């Protein structure tokens, strides 16, 4: 691999298999439960896929696709028990069987063994009203779950016009109390549906602020392994872990630039927290902000030419933007007593942030074109918002019964999802880029 493009986006072949050093659990630590879907959700039927091989099918592909689509909040999925027929080929499809049930889209498919230990899948997506196939495709992978997410992405794109984020991953942090004042912090990596959960870093000291590299593989994070906060980068596939920034005082809040060539972060070596960037190629560090107030939580604009960051230079935390060329700073948020940890959707239009309103911390979104602010959550102590790479959903941390839990909400506020965890305090979610 070319060193200079180490953190740059790379296309991951579906067949490519990750090898992992740490514990692997096929079951999900996080379970995704939809609490509010769209009232205009699209009706789809996903017929159980045919298994064209010996013995039992290795995975319920249709079940995984159904779950993906349902949890997006944008689909109503017909239960298989309600189906009048269960076609697995185009010749077996009778449109009236679906029209009578009010189904708008129908997905069928076939799974079989491929070469070696791979699986092949073929599928067709039908528009019931138009009475025709609108998408067909095939894919191969060693992991049938990944095939299912690939199909979910295809269906989502065909129906909504937006790229699906079902094949992406999440990073998050758990904290468990072990007794005698001992604690265990773990940085996890999981599929976007909570499955294939792996612990990639473990520490008895706090872990926070995970941030994905655009290659969807490396994760920068902050840990106290040396008794003070420092920035590390871990390869989430191999577990290879390196300390990259460690100065006197704070070294924290890492954020990879969109091209993966730079890291923005916070150092307080000058006396108060200031934002810096580090160029991985030239190894040059540049100070970006100069102010005696707290400057923290840098987040890159999609074009890589400016950073959004939190500062209390106006008295309370608000979000500011700094142009990386001129270093000129302008204030971005004005509504709400506090706004912090801002990040932009990939189209650059929406700023998602933690927002203090009437004494409660919510996740809110500011439309940078219209200037309007919309509060997305009704819970309190909401923080650490992270936007899905297609700009549709925001995953964030909140509290439930004195425990940290994750939840998600769509940027338009219409879909709400809970992610209860099987153990511990869960916090600091980070949604990966497209893989």
């Amino acid at each position: 691999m070319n060193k200079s493009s180490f953190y740059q986006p790379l296309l991951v072949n579906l067949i490519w298999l990750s090898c992992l050093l740490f514990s692997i659990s096929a079951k999900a630590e996080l379970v995704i439960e939809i609490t509010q879907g769209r009232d205009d959700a699209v009706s789809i039927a996903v017929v159980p896929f045919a298994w064209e091989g010996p013995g039992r099918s290795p995975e319920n592909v249709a079940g995984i696709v159904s779950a993906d689509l349902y949890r997006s909040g944008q689909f109503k999925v017909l239960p298989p028990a309600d189906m009048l027929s269960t076609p697995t080929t185009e010749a077996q499809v009778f449109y009236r069987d679906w029209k009578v049930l009010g189904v708008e889209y129908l997905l069928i498919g076939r799974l079989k063994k491929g070469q070696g230990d791979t699986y092949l899948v073929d599928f067709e997506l039908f528009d019931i009203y138009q009475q025709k196939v609108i998408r067909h495709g095939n894919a191969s992978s060693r992991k049938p779950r990944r095939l299912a997410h690939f199909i979910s992405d295809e269906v989502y794109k065909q129906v909504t016009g937006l790229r699906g984020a079902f094949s992406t991953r999440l990073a998050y942090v758990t904290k468990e109390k072990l007794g005698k004042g001992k604690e265990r912090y773990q940085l996890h990596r999981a599929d976007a549906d909570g499955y294939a959960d792996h612990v990639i870093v473990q520490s008895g000291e706090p872990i926070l602020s995970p941030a994905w590299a655009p290659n969807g593989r490396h994760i920068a994070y902050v840990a106290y392994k040396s008794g003070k906060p420092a920035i590390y980068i871990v390869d989430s596939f191999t577990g290879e872990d390196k300390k990259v920034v460690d100065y006197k005082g704070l070294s924290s809040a890492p954020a990879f630039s969109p091209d993966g060539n730079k890291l923005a972060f916070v150092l307080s070596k000058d006396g108060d927290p200031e934002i810096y960037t580090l160029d991985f190629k030239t190894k040059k560090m540049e100070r970006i902000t100069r102010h005696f107030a707290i400057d923290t939580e840098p987040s890159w604009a999609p074009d890589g030419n400016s950073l959004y960051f939190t500062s209390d230079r106006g008295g309370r935390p608000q979000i500011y933007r700094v142009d990386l060329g001129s270093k000129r700073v302008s204030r971005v948020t004005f509504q709400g007593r506090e706004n912090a940890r801002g990040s932009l959707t990939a189209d650059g239009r929406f700023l998602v942030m933690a927002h203090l309103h009437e004494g409660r911390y919510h996740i809110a979104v500011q439309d940078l074109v219209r200037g309007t602010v919309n509060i997305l959550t009704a819970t309190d102590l909401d923080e650490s918002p992270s936007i899905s790479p297609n700009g549709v959903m925001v995953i964030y941390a909140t509290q439930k019964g004195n425990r940290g839990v994750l939840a998600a909400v769509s940027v338009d506020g219409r879909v709400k999802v809970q992610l209860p965890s099987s153990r511990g305090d869960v916090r600091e979610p980070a949604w990966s880029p497209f893989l």
Partner: protein
Amino acid sequence: MSIFTRKHLIALMAAASIAGCSTTPDDSTATEDTSASQEASSETSSSEATYGAGDDSVSGSTQGASSAADSLKAAAMQSTIVYFDFDKSNIRPDAYNTLKAHAAYLSANPAVKVRLEGHADERGTREYNLALGERRGKAAANYLTANGASSSQIDVVSYGEERPVAEGNNEASWAQNRRVELKY
């Protein structure tokens, strides 16, 4: 991967170690410092007497110097936590005596080092709270140096909202969590 070379890291460390701060107390604070330590030590002896009441009395004598040092230490160790208001890092008047006692102890014992651990409550974002915890730690450090401690004796580490002492989602818990702990 060689994103960072060892050479570079060493350079970073070197740059970091150059950055430091020194505060020289002016005359008025120095005077205040002396009276504070006297006040603190007299407080200590009286409270020691209270703790000693009812115990079997011990006769004997100790060396004056070490007893003065011990009482400075005892005065400092009476309280090792100071608290802060929401989103504030100014030292509250109720923390003055605690910090002055620690400053007197540090001033009398230049070899002793203290680690100031700054904390925040759970409200607000984690990284902002990390910065806030550090600002509180530094405010306490400045107070100590202004009262006679040397900046070389003090190390400040922020834990932000990561290490609460009280777990509740209410003001009573939050008030306990907005703190700087002095650890020797």
